[in-house]
């Protein structure tokens, strides 16, 4: 199975290469899509033939550990466990759906095979982040994502794409620098970069842990993004092409929350415990600010982008509680947000491409002219507001439960009110966009294409499946999560 582990990284890389090398645009796109499909198969296969859990804390199902650059002690150490597995599969799935979508449509019909190649490089980076068990390797993958994503926004985005792409790259680069310092504090302090060793027994002193955790948390907070470090996100989303937004919201942000949980909490548990009230405060602020801004927002994609700030606030609140309930809520919340917001951005893209506007004042009456599109938008909005029975519910409701458990009633109440706020702004969105008489902008829309429906259907099904069978996401991560809280509660 270790070969599969490597294949998950190598297949998309080869696919990217193939789609650039192949001369014909069409064939290049197809080659890339095939590679994305193969890597999804490989990712799914990782659940087969798992190694029995050995350690108490981090025991990968499969792992590969070889020296890479001995001079700087860099090892190619990758592995998968119940925390990373669902995220790896989600990344592979969303990349495949974006490639499928790009088979049908590329903004401005410019160089579709290059876009597909960049998507696959981004996939390599994100999957690498989720698989890396070496801190330096983690950072390498973390940075690998940055430039292709920049190119996607700057190359295929909307009218203000260059400014948005520049802001995205500079802002997250700033976060990366702080993250790198944090990682180096850990590596030099503990004299190892191996995540398994570091998680099993932390040799860092209390002060080193605090310094490390703060640096790591700020670095990851930029990526997640955590309020008030979020302002790159709305611009990037508004200008990014549809597939860019889907990948950005769907899985790229998860690198931040995953890193915070796996490295921040795993490596510096004392630091995490020390800083957790502040983190929780910021998370609650993110929930409320995100919700209120959405309530006053007039542009479709910006609204969805700000809703992400609120949703990631719930995920960070779950992590900040340092309870198993909170961690589990954060993990399923991560997945749910990836599925639902991915779908929302697909739909917003479909609407903007057809109506040529995302202004809520000019949309209206969509259910009169495009009932299927309006119905899907309604479904996605309802899923995103955290309706019980759909995927979004578990993460948000149990972040609140975890806050109660941790003894933070004020945070619990405010977060729960944030949930009501989410209902307010999503229903406002639906009322503006879908109800009432048809606005001129939505008259005569082209019908939905089968490639669009094919790209959306898996996300709709996943939103329902994760809602009704949350065990899909929660059961694999139960063991590692127990290990993580054992770290934070060990005195």
């Amino acid at each position, binding site marked *: 199975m270790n070969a599969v582990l490597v294949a998950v990284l190598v297949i998309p890389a080869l696919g990217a290469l193939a789609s650039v090398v192949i001369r014909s645009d069409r064939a290049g796109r197809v080659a890339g899509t095939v590679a994305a499909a193969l890597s999804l198969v490989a990712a799914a296969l990782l659940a087969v033939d798992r190694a029995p859990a050995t350690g108490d804390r981090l025991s990968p199902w499969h792992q590969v550990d070889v020296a890479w650059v001995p001079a700087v002690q860099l090892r190619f150490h990758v592995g998968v466990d119940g925390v990373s597995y669902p995220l790896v599969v989600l990344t592979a799935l969303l990349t495949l759906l974006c490639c499928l979508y790009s088979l049908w449509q590329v903004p401005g019909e410019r160089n579709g095979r290059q876009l597909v190649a960049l998507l696959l490089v981004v996939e390599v980076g994100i999957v690498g982040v989720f698989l890396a068990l070496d801190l330096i390797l983690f950072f390498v993958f973390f940075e690998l994502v940055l430039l292709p994503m920049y190119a996607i926004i700057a190359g295929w985005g909307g009218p203000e794409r260059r400014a948005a792409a520049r*802001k995205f790259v500079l802002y997250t680069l700033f976060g990366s620098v702080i993250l790198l310092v944090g990682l180096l504090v850990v590596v030099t302090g503990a004299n190892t970069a191996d995540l398994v060793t570091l998680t099993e027994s932390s040799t860092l002193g209390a002060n080193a842990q605090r310094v490390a955790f703060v640096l790591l948390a700020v670095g990851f907070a930029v990526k997640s993004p955590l309020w008030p470090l979020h302002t*790159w996100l709305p611009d990037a989303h508004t200008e990014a092409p549809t597939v860019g937004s889907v990948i950005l919201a769907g899985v790229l942000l998860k690198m931040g929350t995953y890193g915070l949980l796996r490295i921040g909490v795993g490596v510096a548990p004392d630091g995490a415990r020390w800083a957790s009230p502040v983190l929780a405060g910021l998370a609650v602020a993110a929930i409320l600010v995100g919700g209120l*801004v959405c309530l006053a927002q007039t542009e479709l994609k910006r609204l969805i982008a700000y809703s992400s700030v609120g949703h990631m606030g719930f995920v960070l609140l779950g992590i900040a509680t340092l309870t198993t*309930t909170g961690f589990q809520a954060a993990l399923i919340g991560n997945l749910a947000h990836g599925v639902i917001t991915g779908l929302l951005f697909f739909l917003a893209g479909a609407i903007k491409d057809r109506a040529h506007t995302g202004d809520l004042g000019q949309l209206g009456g969509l259910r009169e002219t495009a*009932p299927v599109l309006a119905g899907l938008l309604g479904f996605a909005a309802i899923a995103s507001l955290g309706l*019980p029975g759909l995927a979004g519910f578990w993460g948000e409701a149990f972040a609140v439960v975890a806050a109660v458990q941790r003894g933070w009633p004020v945070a619990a*109440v405010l977060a729960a009110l944030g949930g009501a706020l989410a209902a307010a702004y999503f229903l406002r969105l639906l009322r503006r966009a879908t109800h*009432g008489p048809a606005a001129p902008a939505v008259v005569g829309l082209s019908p939905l294409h089968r490639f669009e429906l094919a790209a959306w259907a898996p996300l709709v099904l996943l939103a329902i499946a994760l809602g009704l069978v949350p065990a899909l996401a*929660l059961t694999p991560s139960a063991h590692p999560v127990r290990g993580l809280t054992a770290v934070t509660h060990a005195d």
Partner: protein
Amino acid sequence: MNVALAAAMPLAPLAAALVGFLLRSRRSAAALAITATSAALLAAVILALRFDKPVSDGYRAADFVDLTVEFGVRVNGPTTLMALAVGAVALAVQVYSVTYLRDDDRYAPYAAQVSLFTAAMMTVVVASDLVQLLIGWEVMGICSYLLIGHDRRLPEAPRAAVKAFLVTRVGDVGFLLGIAVLGYHAGTFRIDDVLAHDYTGAQLTTACLLLLAGVAGKSAQFPLHTWLPDAMAGPTPISALIHAATMVAAGVYVVTQLFPLFAQAPAALTVLAVMAAITMLLGALAAMAQADIKRVLAWSTVSQLGYMTGALAVKAPGTAMFHLLTHAAFKALLFLAAGAVIHAVGSNLISVTGGLRRSMPATFAATTIGLAALAGLPPFSGFWSKEAILAAAMDEGTGPGWLVYVAGAATVALTGWYATSLWLQVFLGRPRSPAADHAHEPGPAMRYPVLLLAVPAALLGFAGLAGGFVDRLGPGAEEVGHLSAALVVPLGLALAGAAVAWVMWRRGRAADVPARALLADAFHLDAVQAAVVSRPVSALAGAVRRADETAVDGAVLGTGAAALRSGTVLAGAHRAALPRAAGAALGGALLLGLAAILLEWVR
């Protein structure tokens, strides 16, 4: 077997809903919805017949390590009765809708939404876990949102739909927190375990008060009642569904199921008593001044729900359950009959009806039974259940008990007034419009559900005389089926109210209620809600958006601009002509040399 039957009650309509959303054809949508609802009702009937002892079963659905969530079923006496009511009303609504929405091109999704609604309510009824219950609870909320907003010709429909979901969702903030408190302290969300857990008084009071917020939202209790009258924008069969056996019934039903907790939280019960007293009077007063048939019925629901919560507040959950069931029967009947009237005259307004007893005799007879039950006249069902509630309130004897009794007795008089007045204005006298002149009975699919519902609306009260039925209602049903001399007071008040309405009608002043504008607008509570909640939140949202764009993002852009400026300044300093550059280089070298000498000297 009983477990499987109980599981089938939500699962059959759920399956129909999921498939139904993909259907286009009207005929297959109707067939699917009616088949699935019939299956749920059949399961409920068999379960009610087979039921002998409470059962509970489930599987672990979500593992949060410290806490787990179970999906399962939990069946007891009240469950079997509630399931029967839900199944029967849902089936009546599905059959009725086939005709009522004959010309609607969005019938297929509508039928699927009604199925989902039924599944959600059945989930609440049989849930064995609080989180599972919450799922049904909120899915019902979203179904009411979808269905209230169904009618595209009504400009107010989208607004009413949003309002219904948001107001109940605000209450649900409390409900979720209450569940979190209960689950955290008990270490589980299983209802049986939660009921068995030994909480401290403070924990119980907190949890019960939080749960009451959710109950107030769903069961339209003051101050969260404002959504229910506006929900009339939905198609009439949906009003019947929401008002009778689902949605508003859910709040009351959940309290009866969790009553052992509430019984130990007297503060929560006192709050509930106050809420109930205000709600029943407010609803009845507002009902007196409405010009729209459906709004009269809607406000009467608010008022009747006040009786149910009042019964809960005086520790008589079984009696509350009894009134819930009789109300479900007569209110579903009244709405479906009102739908027939609206269908016939083409308007909701009372002023365009009149004299319909001749042209619509079946509807007239059924509505007469329904209104008599609503007014609490013997021997119709509402009489027995309302009587039992007032007797229980009197027996309670404490402050909350008397509060509920006095408010309940006053409400009886008001109810007698508005029920009689509605009956007289719609069915008696002369037709007051050409449409009323040419009115006729609707087709069989709309007529038979109404006539069938008339049977329980008339006779369900007598079930209170059967011991087996009273046992099914659960604890706190001691007053059910026992009549005492004290019933003279409410009965006298109801008849007095009716008499006043008759006199006013005879003088042609049936609609001349004192302070009409104030009552019709229900004491302007909507405006208060807008001023206290909606507008401040909107203003805050605007301010936060501006702050986020100018201050938070401004700081980021400012940092970027400042870095660029300082870069330009430094670059400018480096762009110098040769003499100055050479001078600077020499100066630098000199400075370094001096520093080296100085350091050497210090050593």
